């Protein structure tokens, strides 16, 4: 992959669509308890939007947009948040207890207790983890003991 990215057509189309892909991923995550989807699928869509950005614009643009250790930070925050939701159930003596007093009306976003929070945690974890795997597998190429 050269550092300048792809042609002008690809760059323009990516600039117009990558925001919509990102917002669609967030939509899938936030509506995980109402419609099909959920944390995993939405997280992969968010990761794919960043992958799209990187394939079109090259890696220099990515260095500018995402600071160092950003991905590892998000991955860790997601894991700790999910585990924290699990452990907060100990307040009532159960693992993964739904500690919300009122769970809200069905078919609305603010409902279903801890399930949307868990979805957000899983989405953070999956998106940053998969994008980190993509970066590592694509940027660092090992060929016969020496890297390019």
């Amino acid at each position, binding site marked *: 992959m050269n550092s300048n990215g792809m042609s002008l057509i690809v760059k323009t189309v990516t600039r117009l669509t990558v925001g919509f892909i990102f917002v669609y991923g967030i939509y899938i995550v936030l509506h995980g308890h109402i419609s099909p989807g*959920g944390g995993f699928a939405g997280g992969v869509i968010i990761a794919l939007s960043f*992958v799209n950005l990187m394939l079109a614009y090259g890696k220099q643009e990515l260095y500018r947009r995402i600071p160092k250790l950003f*991905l590892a930070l998000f991955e860790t925050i997601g894991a700790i948040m999910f585990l924290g939701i699990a452990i907060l159930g100990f307040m009532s003596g159960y693992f993964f207890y739904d500690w919300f007093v009122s769970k809200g009306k069905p078919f609305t976003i603010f409902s279903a207790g801890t399930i949307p929070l868990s979805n957000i945690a899983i989405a953070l974890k999956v998106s940053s983890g998969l994008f980190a795997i993509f970066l590592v597998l694509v940027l660092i190429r090992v060929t016969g003991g020496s890297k390019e």
Partner: protein
Amino acid sequence: MLELNLIMLFVIIAAFIAVEMKDLLSAVVSVAAAGLGLCIIFLILKAPDIAITQLVVEIFLLIILIRATIRKDLPFSTSGRWFFNTVMTVTFLIIFLSVGYFVIKQLPQFGHPLMRVSGYYLSEGLEKTRATNLVTSILLGFRAYDTLGEATVLFTAVISVLAVMRKKGRKKIGEAEDKYEL
């Protein structure tokens, strides 16, 4: 169920083409076709959650695989052993087909009998968790402990990939420092 069988046949043919193809890029495209057929099968079987996940993960894997195989062409030769290959292929085909015949004859009807636990989830899931999507209410409500284990597996996998492929550990002496380290 005719369209289901047709798509299953399509998936099997695509998988065969992917195995037998000499060119690696064509094999990757065949794998993508098989994954798309699998996604449509999930949709026909009324599992849209799994269909979305299958489609999205397939796209992600396809990008990585194309990126990994687009400049490499690994020569793979099986010539000179055709007798051994043919005998082994026929033997395993016979074994798998005969065992599979007996196994499939013993399987219960598709979707029957419904387990008592799933009946409980279907009747009480909306009331207990207030989540309209029953798959999510099982995944993160009733069976959240399993999901925690799955998330741990993913976390471990990401950490191991980053640890194996890291740059910091195997830097040569005179090499320029890269800004982006993971």
